[in-house]
Each structure stands twice: as structure tokens, then as C-alpha cells.
């Protein structure tokens, strides 16, 4: 069930919060846990394995942390717990990718040619990439003494499964929410403010991301080889904005839902498109994921304090994993590697010029961001090559190109493109924080909310790009 679905907004949400606020404080975590499992079950109808895995995973991590408290063999328990978490992630997300790649490899090695390993064909459970990372952070924090092992199964279950961030984050280390799980204050302002964030996020998702997505989809439907160069650029800019508003909107909704319940979930985006370098971009884009990789991989490996060579190695490791985390496909590996190359080059070569001259940094990012998203968006490497051939048409004209296609699609989507550009700058959100609670803001958000509902009602919805994990 997506946050941006009528079922969620008009059935789940009112029901959940009605019961939630009727209950006494002590029962609210149980209700949150039950409702979250129901939320997940509804979203994975037909795949009972997903729900079972979630519950099982919660149980294993809960018990592992408790055992760690008492046992002398804490390290062994940590290793086993992490092996379980990442083992599940590997089997469900990467096994077929590995087998498929091996099969492809065998094709190149004569003695092995003809060998074809059977694929497992497992469906990817929704949210597994997110809750696995949360569970892992919990075990590591308990092991390192940064967090207490949770004694209450309900509280731990509510932490791992809470529906606002179950399917797509924000990834929150246990220490950050533990206090709130035990004791949190509910105020009308928190409900109001959370609901406003929810409405804003919904608007970003439905009114911007979905509309921009239509433009990008058109490029695919025309066929990458047949778009004009202006349309190719228009399309990839549209996709860049789509993925931002999609995920940023989702995160705002999640944070808003959390705040309504009294949680302070961390924000995930800080106007990333205003960054001056790739390095900065990744501190401001999907911040909770970046923080996870920083805290649990980069710094344990030595971070940037063990010399240049090791720093580069650590960056490479982090970006290979970040790429793979985004999807089990070679284009994501390529995407991670390219990000690594850019970030390493910024560190070693030109990063300081970009930050010294902001105009230069902005120009650099305006070119780099859409190109990186193209590598991210197009999972077939041949298609990717074709598409780059249209972005940079040195290889000759495309196939059957309709030269004025960009005029046609520009006329269709100019409003979403302009609004998207505006909301990519930091200014609208700065203004929003300033006037939040004013009548003007209230009216604006009411319009945004009901306009979004109207669009959903019309059936122009499509799933979160980021839920494909």
C-alpha cells in the first residue's frame, strides 16, 4: 500500500490514527506494530514469504541482541546475526543476478559453455533493503555499546516494522528512536505539522513526480533510438526531477507520519540539486543511506584518515556497495563505479575549484546529475548506449526521428517542468519552513492535497520509483 494511494489516505490512515489516539500511551506501540504488519501484509498479498521473512528477521535480530548482552561470545553472535541479515538480502535480491551473470560468463569460456545454472526466481520482498540495513545497524550498535539491547519485543518490532518507514526508509539507527519508543509526547502541533509535511510530500509525488514521469516514459515508448537530441535531454532532466520528487516526497510523507505519532525521523534530503559537487550531493541526497554507509562501512574501513590510497579503496568499496544496493543489475554497478570515479576525482583533482567558484560547481552538477541518472534509469546497457548516442548525437542521426518531438512534449509538460525546476532549488522549502502554520500555507497545502487526491482519483498514479528494491 503506497502512501500516495486512496486506500492509504482514506482508509488506513484515518483508521490507524483514530485508534492510535484513542489508546492509552502504553498500548500505542503494540497498535503501531500490529498496524504495520497489516500494512505490510496488504502490500505483499500473494507473497506470504515476504511477511514471514520480515517477522522472522525481526525475531532473529531481537534475540541476537539480547543474547549478545549476556553471552561472552558477543562477536560470534554479531557475525552470525549479520550473516543472517545479509544472507537473506543476498538470497532474495542478488542470487539470481549472480547466477545469471555466471551463466553469461560461462558462455565466454569454451569448456563451460552450455552450462546453465537454474535461477531461483524469488520475488524481492518489499522493503528488504531498508529493514535489513536497519537491523544490521541495530546489531552493530548493540555490539559496539552505542545502543542498549531492546528488552521489549513490541518496542523492537515497532522500531523495525513501523509502517511510515518500513518500505523505503528513512533508515534510522536504533539509538535515534529508542527514547521516543519508550516515551514520546503527542501534541496537536505535531499532528498538524506532520500532516502538512505529508500533504507537501503527496503533492511532490503526485503533482510533480508522476507528471514528469510521464514525459520520461514517453521517451521509452518512442524508443531511445528515435528521440531527438533535445527530447533526450528534456527526458533525462524530467527523470532527474521525477526521481527526486518521488523519493523526497515519499520521505516527507514518512517523516510527517512519524511526527504525527511523536517520532522525529531524520530527513532524507537537503536540496541536493543545489550541490556544487558530487561529494556534496551525496551528503544531501538520501542522507540516511549515505550516513549508513559512512558509519558502518566507510569509517570502520578507516575512512579518510589512513592515507590517500586507503581512502580511495574505501570509497571504491562504499560506492560499489551503494551501486549494488540500488539494484541487482550491472548498470547499478556501473553507476556506483562512475560515482566513485567522480567523487575520487573531486577529492584528488578538481573538487576545490568547484566549491571555490559556485557558478562552476552548479554548471558541473547540471551536466553530471542527469547523465548519472541516465545510467541509473536505463537498466539495459545496450539501451543506455543508444540513449547516450541521442544525448550526444555524434554517432549520426537516430532512427525515424520526429524532429519536432520536443515541441510536442514541451507543450504537454512545460508546467510540470517549470514547477519541478522551481522546487529543485532550496527556496520553496525554506519559505515553507518559515510560513508553516500561517493561513497562507494552510490554504496552499489544502489545495495541493486535494489536487493530488483528484489526480489519484483520476487514476494517474504510478508506484514509487524507489519501491522497486
Amino acid at each position: 500500500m503506497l502512501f500516495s494511494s486512496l486506500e492509504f489516505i482514506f482508509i488506513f490512515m484515518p483508521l490507524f490514527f483514530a485508534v492510535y489516539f484513542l489508546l492509552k500511551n502504553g498500548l500505542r506501540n503494540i497498535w503501531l506494530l500490529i498496524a504495520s504488519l497489516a500494512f505490510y501484509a496488504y502490500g505483499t498479498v500473494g507473497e506470504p514469504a515476504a511477511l514471514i521473512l520480515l517477522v522472522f528477521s525481526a525475531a532473529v535480530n531481537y534475540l541476537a541482541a539480547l543474547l549478545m548482552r549476556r553471552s561472552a561470545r558477543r562477536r560470534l553472535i554479531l557475525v552470525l546475526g549479520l550473516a543472517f541479515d545479509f544472507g537473506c538480502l543476498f538470497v532474495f535480491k542478488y542470487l539470481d543476478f549472480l547466477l545469471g551473470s555466471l551463466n553469461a560468463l560461462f558462455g565466454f569460456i569454451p569448456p563451460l559453455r552450455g552450462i546453465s545454472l537454474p535461477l531461483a526466481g524469488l520475488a524481492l520482498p518489499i522493503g528488504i533493503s531498508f529493514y535489513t540495513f536497519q537491523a544490521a545497524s541495530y546489531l552493530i550498535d548493540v555490539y559496539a555499546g552505542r545502543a542498549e539491547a531492546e528488552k521489549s519485543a513490541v518496542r523492537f518490532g515497532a522500531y523495525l516494522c513501523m509502517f511510515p518507514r518500513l518500505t523505503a526508509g528513512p533508515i534510522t539507527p536504533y539509538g535515534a528512536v529508542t527514547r521516543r519508543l519508550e516515551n514520546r509526547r503527542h501534541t496537536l502541533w505535531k499532528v498538524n505539522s506532520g500532516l502538512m509535511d505529508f500533504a507537501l510530500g503527496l503533492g511532490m509525488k503526485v503533482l510533480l513526480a508522476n507528471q514528469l514521469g510521464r514525459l520520461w516514459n514517453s521517451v521509452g515508448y518512442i524508443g531511445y533510438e528515435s528521440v531527438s537530441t533535445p527530447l533526450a535531454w528534456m527526458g533525462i532532466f524530467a527523470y532527474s526531477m521525477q526521481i527526486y520528487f518521488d523519493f523526497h516526497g515519499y520521505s516527507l510523507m514518512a517523516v510527517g507520519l512519524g511526527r504525527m505519532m511523536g517520532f522525529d525521523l531524520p530527513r532524507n534530503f537537503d536540496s541536493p540539486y543545489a550541490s556544487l559537487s558530487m561529494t556534496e550531493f551525496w551528503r544531501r541526497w538520501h542522507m540516511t543511506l549515505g550516513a549508513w554507509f559512512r558509519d558502518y562501512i566507510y569509517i570502520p574501513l578507516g575512512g579518510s584518515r589512513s592515507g590517500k590510497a586507503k581512502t580511495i579503496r574505501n570509497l571504491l568499496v562504499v560506492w560499489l556497495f551503494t551501486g549494488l544496493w540500488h539494484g541487482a543489475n550491472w548498470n547499478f554497478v556501473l553507476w556506483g563505479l562512475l560515482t566513485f570515479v567522480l567523487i575520487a576525482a573531486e577529492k584528488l583533482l578538481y573538487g576545490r575549484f568547484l566549491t571555490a567558484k559556485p557558478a562552476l560547481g552548479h554548471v558541473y552538477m547540471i551536466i553530471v546529475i542527469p547523465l548519472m541518472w541516465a545510467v541509473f534509469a536505463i537498466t539495459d546497457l545496450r539501451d543506455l548506449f543508444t540513449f547516450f548516442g541521442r544525448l550526444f548525437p555524434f554517432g549520426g542521426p537516430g532512427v525515424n526521428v520526429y524532429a519536432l518531438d520536443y515541441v510536442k512534449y514541451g507543450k504537454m509538460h512545460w508546467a510540470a517542468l517549470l514547477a519541478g525546476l522551481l522546487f529543485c532549488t532550496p527556496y520553496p522549502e525554506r519559505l515553507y519552513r518559515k510560513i508553516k502554520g500561517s493561513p497562507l500555507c494552510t490554504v496552499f497545502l489544502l489545495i495541493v492535497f486535494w489536487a493530488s487526491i483528484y489526480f489519484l482519483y483520476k487514476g494517474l498514479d504510478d508506484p514509487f520509483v524507489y519501491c522497486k528494491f
Partner: protein
Amino acid sequence: MKSRILKNSFVVLLALTYLLAIPLLAARLFGTEENVTASVASTAHAAEPEPLLYNDPGKDAGPASPPDGGDSGGGTDAPALPDDPKQSADPSAEESPPEAGGTAAPDTAGPSSAPQGGTPETQRPVQTGMPGEEQAPSTAPGETGAAETAPSSGPPSGSGDAAQADTPPPLTEYPPDPEGGAVTQDTPPAQRRGTFSTVTKDYFDTALFIGDSRTVGLREYGDLDNADYFADVGMSVFSAFSTKVSIPGVGGTGLENLLGTIVYEKIYIMLGINELGYDYDTVVTKYAEVVGKIRDLAPDAIIFVCANLHVSEGRSSKDSIFNNPNIDKLNGDISRLADGETIFYLDINPVFDDGCGNLSSECTGDGTHLYAKYYKPWSDWLLTMGIKV
């Protein structure tokens, strides 16, 4: 206190508006089947070019791998073609000799689509488009009468095959329609009798295409830029005479005014996909009305009523409205409007068929519209399906 209420007015106002919206949403969420059907249909109306609702995830095959004849054929028609060579050597030995006999189908045509003719008969005896032939008498007695007596007119009979066989090389690059036989088999009488022949591009100097988004695609990506296109996304038989379209040299115009302004010698109509989901009989009646009105407005034109392009297997199997059985049913009724004299039926589907009566998934990204590059073979095919005036 006052400021606190004002500050928190969002939650209050939202709750109030919620209550107002509940009846509306209840209808949507717990709506009856009819409601759903209607809303889906109207959505399709508005959003036909990019039906996001029906995103077809199976587009991995991607545009980078255009299907080549041999390949795609292999997957689909293998069982039907044990004696392929013999057939291509001697088309008249097919299982439908009476028709083929009339015209000396050029054997130079080589292994194009025609040779497969007839074989799938046993494999797929009834395509949904076919009932047209059997049921025709009840619905359109006049036309069928003509159709039944037609064979006596000699040469024209079987020239549907001939046209297929005549097909110039471009066609053979595409799926050599393993169901080629289906063309022969399913082709309604009118098409079979028509004197279809290959024409040059200038044939379309005086042609008008009327249609929905698929025709818009043909205008943008096809080769026939000398024709006029009265086409708009979402156009249906219900809106054909109320929509305004910009025509070069004429400006924004309705169809009636356009036909009064320019005398077209050939008029192609391809409508119907947007109408699915509406009451079927009304659609068929309205379709006939539209064709009749065009006939009246352009009395000397040859009218081509065109089959609606299929949708992909992925979409067809999931969509309760926009699926190929529904499209075939409608196409069958459209084909019955043809009289073989001035109104002819054209069916592009075999060109892009996946071998099972669906639009090949290699040809489409959204399951409904062709990739741009496939509009070229479409216009090439139209060049082989001219009717000499």
C-alpha cells in the same frame, strides 16, 4: 489560544474536507463493476498516449534489438512450417487453392509472408476477427451478398494473397507473420476481393488519415508526410466530428469542414480502441454512422476502414477492457463495413504480430503503441495496400 487554533487549522480543515469527500471516494473504492469500467474507459480516453496505469514492465527486450525475421519467426511458428520450402516454391499448392488460383501470385515474391498461408488453419482455426464471415448475413446482408457472389469476378479474388505475396522486401524484415495464413484465413471477404496493389508514395498526396494516437504516431514517425492527418490522441467515433485538428494549409478544423474544403481521394479510418469499455452495440452503430457520414461528405473517395492495432500479450492478459479479444471482436464488426467496391478493410496486425494474435512485445514499450521505428514498416505496408482508382 486563538493563534493556536489558527496555527493548527490545517488538520481541522483537512478533516472537514475529508468528510465532504467521503461519498465520492466511497464510490471509487467500493464502486461496482460498472463504475470501474466507466472510469477506466474515461481514463484511457484522456491518457491514451502514455497509459501509465498499465505500464508494461516487460520491455526488457528493448529497442536495441530489432526483431529480425528469422529469429522471431523461429520462436513462434516452428510447428506450423514443416514444409515451408515447398510452399514458397508453389503458393498455389496451399490449402486454399480456390482463391490463390485466380491470380498468378508472383512466385518471385520469395519467402515473404504469403507462403505460410493456410498452415495455421488447424492450429488456430478461429481468430476472433473471423466470425465476421459466418455471422455477416445477419448484420449486413447487403454487403455479404456482394461478398458471396464476389468470387465470380475472377481476378480480384485471391488478390489479397497476391498483395501479401507482392509485399516488397521491407516487410520481410519483420516478423514474417507465422500466422500469415491467418491473413488469408481471417481476412474478410472485402479485403480478399479488393484489387490491392503496390502504389508509390504520391498515392498519398490525396489521402487523409483519421484516427487516434496510433494514427498520430503514423503522422509523426511514418513516411507518408504528404498525406493529411485528422488525428488526435483519444479520438473516438464519438468525438471524430466534434474534435478540431490543425491541418497544414487549412488550420484548425473540424472533420466536416475539412471534407468540405479538401477533396480527398482516399480516406483511412482507424478508430475504435478508445471506444472499448463503452457499450459495444452503441460503438458499432456509431462507427457505421461515422463511416456513412464520411461517405456522404466525400462521395468519391475510397474509404479504408482499418483494423485496430492489437495490444501486447502482457497488456491483453491483464486488461479487462483493452485486450485483444475485445479488439478482434470490434475489428470483425469494422471489417463488415467494407463492401469491396469503395470501402475496404485493412488489417495491419499481421505485420507486428507475435504469432499468437498479440502485438509483438518487441515492437512496443507501453503495450499499446509502436516504437517510433516501426511506423516506417507500417507506412511501407500501406504502400502495398493501395486500391487503384
